């Protein structure tokens, strides 16, 4: 077992709990083990997650590969059944309720998808350059993502985009990534500058590109008219559709989130309240912070949902720049360590799985911290090991420890 990774995990979990304690403590001092409080419950989840870890490590590593498909299908089934038996919390039907205790299957679906993807790509005959195989792969990734988005929990659905890093690593043709990046850039630019400007600029750029090909590379365009027209049409259609989707399909609350980020909306009382409060809270921490449990904005409950999605603002206020940079460094080391271990795996299955979970962890803290410090629009996904919630903690723990088990076993593999 990889000790550095386990130490990083323990650091994150412990530091995370300390901040949940700070964010949810009330004036009446009670015992730490009071299970009616948020921090008390989280402590219980942490304790139970150690039991979970023992279980995962006890199961033979081969089992995960063998049962990957079944686990994936079971997970899909559990997501599907939510539409029938699910319980609605905060507007999303993402929960199974067992008395006073609720479980969120989407937190476990990530592990299942990573396993299924690893299993699929570990077949030596499987070549991602074939369109047929690409489609099969995409379906595996998109099915759970679509179910989750329909709950509706679009934030958690978005996380599945992280798997494209894995596909790229496993020789998915590079233009998928290029197209993806161009699409993101065009999306943001269209929102920021409007339809006409972006359309004109992209046409001008395309024209320059064609002229460059014609006169410097001496490639005759005569035989490529179809390609050129398709290129123009696709880009224009995309820009138009972004504009249309943004203005007609998106709801006002979605548009508000983008507008705040792009500086088009400066309302800090209504829609921009969360982001504004969280940025102010972080800012008030200064270089070294106000000290543990001394954050007046945290204690005054200025930031809504501070113990879940906005937990990073507690770190920013009470531990200052030192603490928040420390958390980012720990997450960076944690993900890089997983990547390093993944690259040294002997089996494709373990490598793809490791790469997959590294991408997932990366995506989570990228979006969550980005949102809390005001660089990303409001997308509600938790910060791994930090945010309050049993399902989340267990989901991430399962995700990680399956890999630790796989990694520990690598010497026995061929």
């Amino acid at each position: 077992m990889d000790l550095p990774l386990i130490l990083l995990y323990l650091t994150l979990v412990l530091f995370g709990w300390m901040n949940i304690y700070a964010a949810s403590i009330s004036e009446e001092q009670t015992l730490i083990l009071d299970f009616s409080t948020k921090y008390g419950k989280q402590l219980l989840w942490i304790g139970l997650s150690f039991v979970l870890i023992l279980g995962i490590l006890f199961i033979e590593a081969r089992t995960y590969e063998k049962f990957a498909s079944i686990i994936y299908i079971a997970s899909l089934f559990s997501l599907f059944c939510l539409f029938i038996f699910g319980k609605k919390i905060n507007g999303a039907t993402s929960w199974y309720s067992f008395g006073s205790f609720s479980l969120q299957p989407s937190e476990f679906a990530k592990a299942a998808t990573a396993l299924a993807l690893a299993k699929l790509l570990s077949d030596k005959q499987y070549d991602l350059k074939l369109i047929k195989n690409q489609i099969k792969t995409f379906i595996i990734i998109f099915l759970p993502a679509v179910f989750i988005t329909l709950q509706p929990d679009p934030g958690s659905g978005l996380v599945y985009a992280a798997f494209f890093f894995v596909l790229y690593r496993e020789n998915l043709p590079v233009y998928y990534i290029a197209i993806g990046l161009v699409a993101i850039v065009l999306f943001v630019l269209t929102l920021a500058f409007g339809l006409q400007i972006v359309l004109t600029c992209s046409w001008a750029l395309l024209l320059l590109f064609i002229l460059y090909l014609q006169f410097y590379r001496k490639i005759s365009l005569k035989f490529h008219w179809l390609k050129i027209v398709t290129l123009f049409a696709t880009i224009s259609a995309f820009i138009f559709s972004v504009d249309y989707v943004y203005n007609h399909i998106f709801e006002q609350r979605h548009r508000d989130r983008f507008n705040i980020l792009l500086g088009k909306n400066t309302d800090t009382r209504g829609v921009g309240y969360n982001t504004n409060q969280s940025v102010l809270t972080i800012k008030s921490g200064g270089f070294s912070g106000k000290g543990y449990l001394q954050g007046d904005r945290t204690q005054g409950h200025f930031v809504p949902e501070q113990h879940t999605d906005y937990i990073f603002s507690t770190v920013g206020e009470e531990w200052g720049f030192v603490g928040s940079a420390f958390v980012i460094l720990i997450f960076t080391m944690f993900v890089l360590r997983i990547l390093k271990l993944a690259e040294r795996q002997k089996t494709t299955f373990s490598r793809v799985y490791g790469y997959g979970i590294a991408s997932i962890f990366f995506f989570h803290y990228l979006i969550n911290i980005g949102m809390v410090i005001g660089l990303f629009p409001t997308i509600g996904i938790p910060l791994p090991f930090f945010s309050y919630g049993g399902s989340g903690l267990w989901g991430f723990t399962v995700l990680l420890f399956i890999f630790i088990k796989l990694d520990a076993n690598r010497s026995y593999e061929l």
Partner: protein
Amino acid sequence: MKRGYLLTFFILLTATIYIAKLFHLQVSGMDDDRNLLQSSTVKKIYTYPERGYIYDRNGTLLVSNRLSYNLMIVPREVKPLDTLEFCKLLKIDKNSFLRRYRKAKKWSSRLPSVFLPHLSKEDFAYLQEKMYQYEGFYIEKKAQRYYPIASAANVLGYVNEVNDETAKKNPYYHPGELIGTTGIEKQYEKLLRGSKGVKYMQRDRFNKIIGSFKNSMYDTLPVLGQDLQLTIDSELQQYGEALMQGKRGGIVAIEPSSGEVLSLITMPSYDPNLMIGRLRSKYSVQFFGDTINKPMYDRSLLAQYAPGSPLKIIHGLVGLQEKVIHPNTSFYCYHGYRYGAREKEFMGCHCDIYNAPINLRKGIAKSCNTYFSNVYKRVIEKYPTASEGMNAWNKHLRSFGLGDYLGYDLPLGSKGLVPDAAFYDRWYPSKRWRATYTISNAIGQGQILTTPIQLANMTAAIANRGFYFTPHFLKSKYGNSISDTIFNKAHQTSIDKKNFGPIIEGMHDVFRTGTAKHVRLKNIEICGKTGTAENFVRVHGTKHQFEDHSIFVAFAPKKDPKIAIAVYIENGGFGSTIAAPIASLMIEKYITHNVANTWWENKMFTTSLENIYNKQLKIRQSKSESSKK
């Protein structure tokens, strides 16, 4: 694998960007202490200076402050109490108690909020002894406006508590503070309020104050509110208000030599002491909701009436200035004035000088319609086209401040209307109108509209023989001299000084032999002019003639005038029956401080037009009911 580095690259890029952003937020953005002043950990405590007092021109106190007492509650500290007894103490019922308690608790359970506002001093003294029994309640003192004399409410205005909307627009104010909403209180709000001081205090995480912030280096001291002295003569103002009882209309009196407004009376009015404290919400609904008497409507500044005969004075002046008449020009009057094609149209006249020459002086004294219709026609027809004539006439009238807001220092006003050629071009799109089309203007009855303060200002300009000062209400700021020179600059009219002589003689004759001789004074030479404006009202398509408006303008004494006055009484009948006696009494009161003319005084005090107003109201209502059917 080379391809594996893409993710690594993104991970490192993200770490760099995020740490840079956090550095920018938490380290480089922190050097400014002033940001800390806005922090929620710093509590601002305001010290409010006392609002300035307002005095009249003789130093009589008009507005002062009185402490009011609010019962405050901190819901979290409230212990179980004998609700019934407590309610009895506060004179509220149990439902009201529960509603107030819930409202306070909903707002905040640990911060104080107002439970019962504006307790009287008597209630406070009584409650204070009992308060120790009720934990979580305490009494807070707050200053409140007080009006020792219930008079001049329309001039003084009132203060209101700032609402959320105002506070958003103007960051100086916080909800619940006082702000001048109308009148002098609004006009001189900044002077009267002074400015509040602020102390910055450090709070701990339980919002408890643990000391001053950064050794009080950012604290500011409050600046006291400025006391103001108005030009209003309170004695005259009250006398005028008493004379106006039972009537509707306005009186404006101005000191011609300075433009100082001696009194500004509108009736019906209201008691300013009802617009403060706990009573306000009740009475403001009542006052603003009274669409029949309109006590909140300042008729002296806002109501636009036909000026009636006083405009004949101006026509006399314009005629002299335009040299279409001279003082001895005479016209004949045959109980009226015939005009139009083949003289088919007829305007009646009450001057009763049949088939004898009438000169200018007599024309004014007897208020002859025929005389001034001729003058008006000559003025308009002096020019090649009626348009040019009309515009020349318009210019003369405007130089007296008619058709203008005048620029006085109250935040209310009406422009009135002085028509010009463009105005009649719109009325007659063929543009083929002539002097006789607009002949009603000659007797102040056409399209022209004026407000009482404009009439008073016009009279002041005549008293000054050719110029006026912007009417104003602020006499001095105690302890500071007025630096506004706009009130000290004379506005010249377009009439030469020499032309005023015969006109003023005519106005003097009004009291000697003319329409106001019944209210002349023994020792004061008054110059004035009566007016009677016909009053047609269109109710659901049918035209009704209501009682005439009674109008009077005057100044006195003839030599070195001390007061110029305009009186406008809605539906008061002839100018000589109500407006003239009131003007005469006001002048006597102001100049001699003592009224010898007690017969007229008593008659005016007791004259009430309520019956006439009720009759008119019935016509309006009956018509509206029948139209509903």
